[in-house]
């Protein structure tokens, strides 16, 4: 409870982690607010079904609040005039202000009378897109900070956020956001493409960093490294150099 997990990918696609956490928390009975900025609802739904969860059903019973960024963006830009007072989560496209997005998250996860869900969860895929859409790095960090105060501390829920990171890309704004988030995360899952390039049996390496130093000053972070292979309905993890193809 109250944990901030950072998903990070470098030279590879870490979205399999997003799919995992989405189905994991839904199956656990949590109320989930999913800010899905880059893919359509049906994309996640199809994958979730392979993982044994129906997003449509979760939405129906009020367990899942799904912000489909691409669709909201079109509604905002091409839609009819909105009624005054209607919340517009993606308002930052015109105003560079992420407060509306935060309000959306807060309202979605604040428990309603009669709710029996186990703990709220905020899931974001992916935060780096906000920078591409013109939000300033400081605004993005503020947004996360407010979410953390609201979701982790007030509501005792969890947050899981995906960011892309690639030092070679020299994207200073992005690296600023990523480094800052790393400092404040309880758990970091870092998926990296192999340095040696593409391999059929090993899709990448995942570094699991438990930030024990965050809670206890004298503690050292615990780092574990595995390699993984993504399959149609599953991801297999194994110790480095011990993929099934090698053994």
């Amino acid at each position: 409870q109250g944990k901030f997990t950072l998903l990070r990918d470098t030279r590879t696609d870490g979205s399999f982690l997003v799919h995992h956490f989405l189905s994991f928390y839904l199956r656990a009975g949590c109320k989930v607010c999913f800010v899905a900025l880059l893919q359509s609802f049906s994309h996640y739904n199809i994958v979730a079904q392979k993982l044994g969860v129906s997003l449509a059903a979760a939405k129906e019973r009020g367990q899942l609040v799904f912000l489909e960024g691409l669709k909201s963006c079109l509604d905002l830009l091409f839609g009819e005039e909105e009624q005054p007072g209607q919340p517009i989560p993606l308002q930052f496209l015109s105003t560079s202000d992420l407060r509306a997005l935060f309000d959306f998250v807060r309202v979605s996860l604040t428990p309603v009378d009669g709710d029996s869900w186990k703990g709220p969860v905020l899931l974001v895929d992916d935060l780096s897109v906000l920078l591409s859409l013109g939000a300033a790095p400081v605004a993005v960090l503020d947004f996360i900070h407010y979410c953390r105060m609201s979701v982790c501390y007030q509501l005792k829920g969890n947050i899981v956020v995906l960011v892309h990171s690639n030092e070679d890309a020299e994207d200073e704004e992005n690296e600023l956001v990523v480094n800052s988030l790393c400092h404040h995360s309880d758990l970091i899952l870092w998926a990296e493409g192999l340095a040696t390039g593409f391999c059929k049996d090993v899709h990448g390496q995942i570094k699991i960093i438990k930030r024990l130093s965050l809670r206890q000053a004298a503690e050292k972070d615990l780092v574990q490294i595995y390699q993984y292979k993504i399959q149609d309905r599953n991801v297999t993890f194994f110790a480095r150099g011990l993929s099934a193809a090698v053994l």
Partner: protein
Amino acid sequence: LVFTEEDKYGLYSNLLFKYFLAEGIVCGHELFVASAKEHPDNILKELPAPLLDNTYRKELGDEGAAVKSEDFQDSMKIAWRYQNLPKVEASPTTHTKFGHYYDISKKMPPELCQSVKWHSFYLHEELSVEPKMKPCNMNSGYAKLLHSIQRIISQEGFDGSDPQKKQRNVLRIGIQSLGSILWGDDVCCSDAPEDPHSLTKFLYVLRGLLRKSLSACIITVPTHLIQNKAIMERVTNLSDMVVGLESFIGSERETNPLYKDYHGLVHVHQIPRLNSLICDVSDTKDLAFRLKRKLFTIE
């Protein structure tokens, strides 16, 4: 959203662009062609002629496997994968009849071009009326293009969420040399462009339009001119498929004996991972292309 990095002189990326459009005509799809450089009418006059089934074998002889544009169902929203190319083949495979073949030494007959409905967007001809898109701090050329695409999608029945009885078709969108100075964007001229977000915002909105419609899109971008690496990274993350063409013209590779049969390299930077945990990665990642008199092949 297929993002194609242009080769230095745009020769080969232009060819791929035309293949995409030609395949659309042969399949009976509707076309939307946008450019700030060449009038779309002229682009459409220069499409390669399709090879008919019984003549293609004769034409191709024992040349390498031809580039095949994917022939896809209405439900797909993404254009074009190279994954289905056979690895090293002496002659075109017969078991995968996937798309059509073209003879680039001949032009597509005008009757065939006119057999499909098409829309054009030539930036310099577009009215100076402000686009009916809510302001979002985007370059006006891009905003007009988005508005135009959105209008065609909703008015011509490509919107996936619109219930309608008539037969649905696929819209093929081709955007040429996006990001170049001709679009009013300085992202290709400067390390620190004045408006670094217009291109990425454009791609985001375009992605949204593609996701909700029965359309597929290829854009070509002169990325060799983009000095800002951060923008390249962001643009890659916003696209589904990213392919780069590197021509050997004027480079030291031109005289490298390893490449003597080829005109350039194909770099597949990213492939789509849609509706699935896995993506369709082929075994071969080292691809090169060559342009013969009649055929453009990738091996």
